[in-house]
Protein backbone atom coordinates (compact mmCIF):
# COMPACT_ATOMS: atom_id res chain seq x y z
CA UNK A 1 0.00 0.00 0.00
CA UNK A 2 1.53 3.25 -1.15
CA UNK A 3 1.79 6.39 0.91
CA UNK A 4 -0.96 8.94 0.61
CA UNK A 5 1.22 11.30 -1.41
CA UNK A 6 1.70 8.62 -4.05
CA UNK A 7 -2.02 7.87 -4.17
CA UNK A 8 -2.73 11.55 -4.62
CA UNK A 9 -0.26 11.78 -7.45
CA UNK A 10 -1.63 8.73 -9.25
CA UNK A 11 -5.22 9.82 -8.77
CA UNK A 12 -4.44 13.31 -10.03
CA UNK A 13 -2.99 11.81 -13.21
CA UNK A 14 -5.90 9.45 -13.73
CA UNK A 15 -8.60 12.04 -13.14
CA UNK A 16 -7.52 15.26 -14.79
CA UNK A 17 -8.92 18.36 -13.19
CA UNK A 18 -9.55 16.83 -9.79
CA UNK A 19 -8.61 19.05 -6.89
CA UNK A 20 -6.98 16.79 -4.34
CA UNK A 21 -5.70 17.71 -0.95
CA UNK A 22 -4.22 15.71 1.90
CA UNK A 23 -5.73 16.15 5.33
CA UNK A 24 -3.65 14.82 8.16
CA UNK A 25 -5.08 13.02 11.10
CA UNK A 26 -3.59 12.99 14.59
CA UNK A 27 0.04 11.88 14.63
CA UNK A 28 -0.89 8.79 16.60
CA UNK A 29 -3.66 7.60 14.33
CA UNK A 30 -1.65 7.96 11.10
CA UNK A 31 -4.72 7.96 8.91
CA UNK A 32 -4.30 10.82 6.43
CA UNK A 33 -7.28 11.40 4.19
CA UNK A 34 -7.71 12.60 0.63
CA UNK A 35 -10.01 15.58 0.22
CA UNK A 36 -11.64 15.56 -3.21
CA UNK A 37 -13.84 18.23 -4.73
CA UNK A 38 -17.49 17.46 -5.30
CA UNK A 39 -17.30 17.30 -9.09
CA UNK A 40 -14.60 14.66 -9.22
CA UNK A 41 -15.29 12.46 -6.21
CA UNK A 42 -17.13 9.90 -8.32
CA UNK A 43 -14.32 9.65 -10.85
CA UNK A 44 -11.64 9.39 -8.18
CA UNK A 45 -13.60 6.73 -6.32
CA UNK A 46 -14.20 4.79 -9.52
CA UNK A 47 -10.51 4.95 -10.31
CA UNK A 48 -9.56 3.70 -6.86
CA UNK A 49 -12.05 0.90 -7.14
CA UNK A 50 -11.00 -0.31 -10.56
CA UNK A 51 -7.27 0.35 -10.65
CA UNK A 52 -5.38 -2.94 -10.17
CA UNK A 53 -2.91 -1.28 -7.82
CA UNK A 54 -5.61 -0.36 -5.32
CA UNK A 55 -8.74 -2.44 -5.99
CA UNK A 56 -10.71 -0.72 -3.25
CA UNK A 57 -13.70 -3.02 -3.53
CA UNK A 58 -14.98 -2.68 0.04
CA UNK A 59 -16.56 0.58 1.14
CA UNK A 60 -16.51 0.04 4.84
CA UNK A 61 -17.82 3.20 6.42
CA UNK A 62 -19.67 6.26 5.15
CA UNK A 63 -20.54 9.09 7.44
CA UNK A 64 -21.15 12.81 7.65
CA UNK A 65 -19.47 15.32 9.92
CA UNK A 66 -20.87 18.76 10.62
CA UNK A 67 -18.29 21.52 11.01
CA UNK A 68 -19.83 24.72 12.28
CA UNK A 69 -18.81 28.16 11.19
CA UNK A 70 -15.62 29.35 12.79
CA UNK A 71 -13.66 32.57 12.53
CA UNK A 72 -11.72 31.73 9.39
CA UNK A 73 -13.95 28.99 8.14
CA UNK A 74 -17.50 29.27 6.72
CA UNK A 75 -18.49 25.84 7.98
CA UNK A 76 -19.27 22.79 5.90
CA UNK A 77 -20.57 19.26 6.00
CA UNK A 78 -17.97 16.65 5.28
CA UNK A 79 -18.78 13.18 4.00
CA UNK A 80 -16.12 10.60 4.82
CA UNK A 81 -15.66 7.30 2.99
CA UNK A 82 -13.40 4.59 4.40
CA UNK A 83 -12.31 2.23 1.65
CA UNK A 84 -10.62 -1.13 2.08
CA UNK A 85 -9.58 -3.80 -0.35
CA UNK A 86 -10.75 -7.34 0.21
CA UNK A 87 -8.90 -8.61 -2.85
CA UNK A 88 -5.52 -7.24 -1.81
CA UNK A 89 -6.25 -7.06 1.91
CA UNK A 90 -4.99 -3.52 2.41
CA UNK A 91 -6.42 -0.18 3.37
CA UNK A 92 -7.80 2.11 4.41
CA UNK A 93 -7.92 4.93 1.89
CA UNK A 94 -10.03 7.70 3.30
CA UNK A 95 -11.91 9.97 0.92
CA UNK A 96 -13.46 13.18 2.10
CA UNK A 97 -15.80 15.47 0.26
CA UNK A 98 -17.20 18.75 1.49
CA UNK A 99 -20.47 20.54 0.87
CA UNK A 100 -21.88 23.81 2.21
CA UNK A 101 -24.07 23.63 5.27
CA UNK A 102 -27.12 25.30 3.69
CA UNK A 103 -29.76 22.67 3.09
CA UNK A 104 -30.44 23.58 -0.52
CA UNK A 105 -26.77 23.53 -1.48
CA UNK A 106 -25.73 20.55 0.60
CA UNK A 107 -25.38 18.07 -2.27
CA UNK A 108 -22.70 15.54 -3.14
CA UNK A 109 -22.69 12.78 -5.74
CA UNK A 110 -23.75 9.38 -4.49
CA UNK A 111 -21.28 6.50 -4.64
CA UNK A 112 -23.96 3.85 -4.28
CA UNK A 113 -23.59 2.86 -7.90
CA UNK A 114 -20.00 1.91 -7.15
CA UNK A 115 -20.56 0.25 -3.78
CA UNK A 116 -23.96 -1.11 -2.73
CA UNK A 117 -22.69 -0.91 0.83
CA UNK A 118 -22.97 2.86 0.74
CA UNK A 119 -26.73 2.73 0.13
CA UNK A 120 -28.01 2.64 3.68
CA UNK A 121 -25.15 4.68 5.07
CA UNK A 122 -25.79 7.51 2.61
CA UNK A 123 -29.45 7.41 3.49
CA UNK A 124 -28.44 7.71 7.11
CA UNK A 125 -26.21 10.70 6.38
CA UNK A 126 -29.11 12.30 4.51
CA UNK A 127 -31.44 11.66 7.41
CA UNK A 128 -29.17 12.92 10.15
CA UNK A 129 -27.20 15.62 8.33
CA UNK A 130 -29.34 16.62 5.38
CA UNK A 131 -26.74 15.81 2.76
CA UNK A 132 -28.49 15.20 -0.55
CA UNK A 133 -26.77 12.45 -2.51
CA UNK A 134 -27.37 13.00 -6.19
CA UNK A 135 -28.38 9.92 -8.17
CA UNK A 136 -28.93 7.88 -5.04
CA UNK A 137 -31.52 5.22 -5.99
CA UNK A 138 -33.72 5.57 -2.94
CA UNK A 139 -32.96 8.64 -0.87
CA UNK A 140 -35.47 8.58 1.97
CA UNK A 141 -35.19 9.00 5.69
CA UNK A 142 -34.00 5.81 7.27
CA UNK A 143 -33.94 6.31 11.02
CA UNK A 144 -36.44 9.08 11.73
CA UNK A 145 -40.04 9.04 10.53
CA UNK A 146 -40.90 10.46 7.13
CA UNK A 147 -42.79 13.49 8.44
CA UNK A 148 -39.77 14.67 10.42
CA UNK A 149 -38.34 17.89 9.01
CA UNK A 150 -35.10 18.42 10.94
CA UNK A 151 -31.69 16.85 10.57
CA UNK A 152 -30.95 16.04 14.16
CA UNK A 153 -27.24 15.33 14.07
CA UNK A 154 -26.39 18.81 12.88
CA UNK A 155 -24.66 20.75 15.58
CA UNK A 156 -27.24 23.54 15.54
CA UNK A 157 -30.24 21.25 15.93
CA UNK A 158 -32.60 22.18 18.77
CA UNK A 159 -34.31 19.15 20.29
CA UNK A 160 -37.99 19.34 21.26
CA UNK A 161 -38.64 20.43 24.82
CA UNK A 162 -40.17 17.40 26.41
CA UNK A 163 -38.06 17.00 29.49
CA UNK A 164 -39.92 16.45 32.67
CA UNK A 165 -39.14 17.92 36.01
CA UNK A 166 -36.64 16.10 38.16
CA UNK A 167 -35.70 16.92 41.74
CA UNK A 168 -32.42 18.81 41.82
CA UNK A 169 -30.36 20.14 44.73
CA UNK A 170 -31.82 23.55 44.01
CA UNK A 171 -35.39 22.44 44.22
CA UNK A 172 -36.01 23.59 47.77
CA UNK A 173 -34.60 27.02 47.08
CA UNK A 174 -36.76 27.40 44.02
CA UNK A 175 -39.81 26.33 45.89
CA UNK A 176 -39.12 28.86 48.63
CA UNK A 177 -38.61 31.62 46.10
CA UNK A 178 -41.92 30.84 44.56
CA UNK A 179 -43.68 30.89 47.90
CA UNK A 180 -42.07 34.11 49.04
CA UNK A 181 -42.80 35.89 45.79
CA UNK A 182 -46.34 34.55 45.71
CA UNK A 183 -45.93 33.27 42.17
CA UNK A 184 -47.65 30.09 41.17
CA UNK A 185 -46.07 28.82 38.00
CA UNK A 186 -48.55 27.31 35.53
CA UNK A 187 -48.40 23.58 35.59
CA UNK A 188 -46.98 21.96 32.57
CA UNK A 189 -50.26 20.16 32.20
CA UNK A 190 -52.11 23.37 31.49
CA UNK A 191 -49.46 24.29 29.03
CA UNK A 192 -49.76 20.96 27.29
CA UNK A 193 -53.50 21.28 27.09
CA UNK A 194 -53.16 24.71 25.62
CA UNK A 195 -50.73 23.41 23.08
CA UNK A 196 -53.12 20.61 22.24
CA UNK A 197 -56.02 22.99 21.61
CA UNK A 198 -53.97 24.90 19.14
Amino acid sequence: MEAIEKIKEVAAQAVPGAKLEIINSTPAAQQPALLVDRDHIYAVAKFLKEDPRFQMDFCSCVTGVDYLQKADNPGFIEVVYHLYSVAQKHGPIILKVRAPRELDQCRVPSLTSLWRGAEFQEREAYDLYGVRFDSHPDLRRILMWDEFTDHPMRKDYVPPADYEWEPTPHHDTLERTVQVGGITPPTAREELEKARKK
Partner: protein
Amino acid sequence: MAVDEGLRSELQKQGIFVLPFEQLYNWGRKSSIWPLQFGLACCAIEMIASAAARYDLARFGAEVFRATPRQADLMIVAGTVTKKMAPLVVRLYNQMPEPKYCIAMGACAISGGPFKDGYNVLKGIDRYIPVDVHIPGCPPRPEALIHAIMTLQRKIANQHLETENRLRWYDKNAETEFPIPSYGDHDLQPPANCEVWQPPRSYRDVTLDEVKKA
Protein backbone atom coordinates in the same frame (compact mmCIF):
# COMPACT_ATOMS: atom_id res chain seq x y z
CA MET B 1 -70.70 -8.09 47.28
CA ALA B 2 -67.76 -8.79 49.50
CA VAL B 3 -68.23 -11.09 52.46
CA ASP B 4 -67.38 -9.60 55.81
CA GLU B 5 -63.90 -10.66 56.83
CA GLY B 6 -64.89 -11.53 60.41
CA LEU B 7 -67.82 -13.58 59.27
CA ARG B 8 -65.68 -15.44 56.83
CA SER B 9 -63.06 -16.38 59.39
CA GLU B 10 -65.85 -17.42 61.78
CA LEU B 11 -67.33 -19.64 59.06
CA GLN B 12 -63.93 -21.05 58.29
CA LYS B 13 -63.59 -22.19 61.88
CA GLN B 14 -66.83 -24.08 61.40
CA GLY B 15 -65.42 -25.76 58.34
CA ILE B 16 -67.33 -23.65 55.83
CA PHE B 17 -65.22 -21.97 53.20
CA VAL B 18 -66.69 -18.98 51.48
CA LEU B 19 -65.17 -18.13 48.17
CA PRO B 20 -66.49 -14.91 46.74
CA PHE B 21 -66.77 -14.81 43.01
CA GLU B 22 -64.38 -11.90 42.98
CA GLN B 23 -61.68 -13.95 44.60
CA LEU B 24 -62.06 -16.81 42.18
CA TYR B 25 -62.02 -14.36 39.33
CA ASN B 26 -58.84 -12.73 40.56
CA TRP B 27 -57.22 -16.09 41.23
CA GLY B 28 -57.88 -17.19 37.66
CA ARG B 29 -56.43 -14.01 36.26
CA LYS B 30 -53.38 -13.87 38.44
CA SER B 31 -52.47 -17.50 37.87
CA SER B 32 -52.43 -17.22 34.15
CA ILE B 33 -50.77 -14.03 33.03
CA TRP B 34 -49.84 -14.36 29.40
CA PRO B 35 -47.40 -11.69 28.29
CA LEU B 36 -47.23 -10.20 24.84
CA GLN B 37 -44.21 -11.44 22.93
CA PHE B 38 -42.81 -8.05 22.37
CA GLY B 39 -39.26 -6.94 23.02
CA LEU B 40 -37.95 -3.50 22.30
CA ALA B 41 -34.28 -3.49 23.22
CA CYS B 42 -31.71 -4.86 25.63
CA CYS B 43 -34.23 -5.77 28.32
CA ALA B 44 -35.94 -8.16 25.91
CA ILE B 45 -32.91 -10.44 26.12
CA GLU B 46 -33.23 -10.56 29.87
CA MET B 47 -36.93 -11.18 29.39
CA ILE B 48 -36.09 -14.24 27.31
CA ALA B 49 -33.51 -15.25 29.90
CA SER B 50 -36.17 -15.13 32.57
CA ALA B 51 -38.24 -17.57 30.54
CA ALA B 52 -35.23 -19.82 30.00
CA ALA B 53 -33.75 -22.62 32.01
CA ARG B 54 -32.40 -20.99 35.13
CA TYR B 55 -35.19 -18.57 35.98
CA ASP B 56 -38.19 -20.23 34.35
CA LEU B 57 -41.09 -17.85 34.34
CA ALA B 58 -43.24 -20.86 33.40
CA ARG B 59 -43.53 -21.82 37.04
CA PHE B 60 -46.03 -19.01 37.50
CA GLY B 61 -47.96 -20.01 34.43
CA ALA B 62 -46.65 -16.93 32.67
CA GLU B 63 -44.49 -18.45 29.95
CA VAL B 64 -47.14 -18.45 27.25
CA PHE B 65 -45.76 -15.54 25.26
CA ARG B 66 -48.46 -14.74 22.74
CA ALA B 67 -47.39 -13.08 19.54
CA THR B 68 -50.71 -11.40 18.95
CA PRO B 69 -51.94 -8.69 21.34
CA ARG B 70 -55.46 -10.08 21.16
CA GLN B 71 -54.50 -13.04 23.31
CA ALA B 72 -52.20 -11.35 25.77
CA ASP B 73 -52.95 -10.06 29.26
CA LEU B 74 -49.73 -8.28 30.01
CA MET B 75 -47.49 -6.03 28.03
CA ILE B 76 -43.90 -6.02 29.20
CA VAL B 77 -42.41 -2.85 27.75
CA ALA B 78 -38.88 -4.21 27.68
CA GLY B 79 -36.53 -1.52 26.52
CA THR B 80 -36.22 1.98 25.18
CA VAL B 81 -39.41 3.33 23.64
CA THR B 82 -38.41 5.69 20.87
CA LYS B 83 -40.70 8.33 19.51
CA LYS B 84 -40.94 6.42 16.27
CA MET B 85 -42.10 3.35 18.17
CA ALA B 86 -44.35 5.02 20.76
CA PRO B 87 -47.54 5.22 18.63
CA LEU B 88 -47.17 1.55 17.84
CA VAL B 89 -46.75 0.62 21.50
CA VAL B 90 -49.91 2.54 22.36
CA ARG B 91 -51.72 0.86 19.51
CA LEU B 92 -50.60 -2.56 20.71
CA TYR B 93 -51.84 -1.73 24.18
CA ASN B 94 -55.18 -0.66 22.74
CA GLN B 95 -55.43 -3.91 20.84
CA MET B 96 -55.10 -6.00 23.96
CA PRO B 97 -58.35 -7.19 25.54
CA GLU B 98 -59.32 -5.94 28.97
CA PRO B 99 -58.41 -6.57 31.77
CA LYS B 100 -54.86 -5.78 30.71
CA TYR B 101 -51.71 -4.79 32.51
CA CYS B 102 -48.42 -3.18 31.69
CA ILE B 103 -44.98 -3.65 33.20
CA ALA B 104 -42.36 -1.02 32.40
CA MET B 105 -39.17 -3.03 32.43
CA GLY B 106 -35.92 -1.15 32.77
CA ALA B 107 -34.84 2.43 33.18
CA CYS B 108 -35.59 3.34 29.56
CA ALA B 109 -39.20 2.26 29.69
CA ILE B 110 -39.69 4.10 32.96
CA SER B 111 -38.09 7.41 32.10
CA GLY B 112 -35.85 7.18 29.06
CA GLY B 113 -33.03 5.95 31.24
CA PRO B 114 -29.53 6.62 30.00
CA PHE B 115 -30.93 7.77 26.67
CA LYS B 116 -33.18 10.36 28.22
CA ASP B 117 -31.38 13.24 26.52
CA GLY B 118 -32.01 11.88 23.06
CA TYR B 119 -34.20 13.64 20.53
CA ASN B 120 -35.92 10.43 19.51
CA VAL B 121 -36.38 8.85 22.93
CA LEU B 122 -39.69 8.90 24.74
CA LYS B 123 -39.19 9.86 28.37
CA GLY B 124 -41.11 6.97 29.80
CA ILE B 125 -43.97 4.95 28.38
CA ASP B 126 -46.21 6.15 31.24
CA ARG B 127 -46.70 9.34 29.26
CA TYR B 128 -49.15 7.52 27.05
CA ILE B 129 -50.38 4.41 28.82
CA PRO B 130 -50.90 3.57 32.48
CA VAL B 131 -48.15 1.40 33.91
CA ASP B 132 -48.89 -1.06 36.68
CA VAL B 133 -45.43 -2.14 37.76
CA HIS B 134 -42.12 -0.38 37.23
CA ILE B 135 -38.88 -2.35 37.37
CA PRO B 136 -35.74 -0.25 37.68
CA GLY B 137 -32.42 -1.48 36.38
CA CYS B 138 -30.45 -1.30 33.18
CA PRO B 139 -31.28 -4.00 32.37
CA PRO B 140 -33.14 -5.49 35.35
CA ARG B 141 -32.06 -8.97 36.24
CA PRO B 142 -34.46 -11.82 35.45
CA GLU B 143 -35.17 -12.12 39.16
CA ALA B 144 -36.45 -8.57 39.05
CA LEU B 145 -38.87 -9.44 36.28
CA ILE B 146 -40.09 -12.43 38.21
CA HIS B 147 -40.55 -10.18 41.21
CA ALA B 148 -42.51 -7.78 39.06
CA ILE B 149 -44.78 -10.59 37.92
CA MET B 150 -45.34 -11.54 41.56
CA THR B 151 -46.07 -7.93 42.43
CA LEU B 152 -48.55 -7.81 39.61
CA GLN B 153 -50.15 -10.99 40.89
CA ARG B 154 -50.56 -9.33 44.26
CA LYS B 155 -52.06 -6.31 42.61
CA ILE B 156 -54.52 -8.42 40.66
CA ALA B 157 -55.49 -10.38 43.76
CA ASN B 158 -56.44 -7.15 45.54
CA GLN B 159 -58.55 -5.69 42.77
CA HIS B 160 -62.27 -5.35 43.21
CA LEU B 161 -65.16 -5.46 40.83
CA GLU B 162 -67.38 -2.92 42.47
CA THR B 163 -65.73 -0.61 44.94
CA GLU B 164 -63.70 2.54 44.35
CA ASN B 165 -60.60 0.60 43.50
CA ARG B 166 -62.32 -1.45 40.82
CA LEU B 167 -60.90 -2.69 37.59
CA ARG B 168 -60.70 -0.24 34.77
CA TRP B 169 -62.89 -2.46 32.67
CA TYR B 170 -65.75 -2.30 35.16
CA ASP B 171 -65.55 1.44 35.54
CA LYS B 172 -67.97 3.01 33.07
CA ASN B 173 -66.18 6.35 33.12
CA ALA B 174 -62.69 5.02 32.72
CA GLU B 175 -60.78 5.33 29.50
CA THR B 176 -59.98 1.97 27.97
CA GLU B 177 -58.73 3.14 24.61
CA PHE B 178 -55.80 5.50 24.69
CA PRO B 179 -55.26 8.14 22.03
CA ILE B 180 -52.44 7.28 19.66
CA PRO B 181 -49.97 10.13 19.09
CA SER B 182 -49.12 11.06 15.54
CA TYR B 183 -45.78 11.82 13.97
CA GLY B 184 -45.19 15.55 13.87
CA ASP B 185 -42.65 17.77 12.17
CA HIS B 186 -40.34 17.90 15.18
CA ASP B 187 -41.89 15.73 17.83
CA LEU B 188 -44.82 13.48 18.57
CA GLN B 189 -48.21 15.22 18.62
CA PRO B 190 -49.26 15.53 21.39
CA PRO B 191 -46.09 15.03 23.43
CA ALA B 192 -47.99 13.34 26.25
CA ASN B 193 -51.45 12.09 27.11
CA CYS B 194 -52.68 14.38 29.88
CA GLU B 195 -55.37 11.93 31.00
CA VAL B 196 -52.77 9.39 31.97
CA TRP B 197 -49.71 11.41 32.83
CA GLN B 198 -49.57 14.67 34.63
CA PRO B 199 -46.14 16.21 34.63
CA PRO B 200 -44.92 17.54 37.91
CA ARG B 201 -44.89 21.32 38.42
CA SER B 202 -42.04 22.79 36.50
CA TYR B 203 -39.94 25.69 37.65
CA ARG B 204 -37.80 25.88 34.62
CA ASP B 205 -38.90 28.78 32.51
CA VAL B 206 -36.99 27.51 29.54
CA THR B 207 -39.07 24.41 29.43
CA LEU B 208 -42.29 26.32 29.71
CA ASP B 209 -41.39 28.68 26.94
CA GLU B 210 -40.59 25.85 24.66
CA VAL B 211 -43.75 24.01 25.57
CA LYS B 212 -45.68 27.15 24.63
CA LYS B 213 -43.98 27.22 21.32
CA ALA B 214 -44.81 23.59 20.67
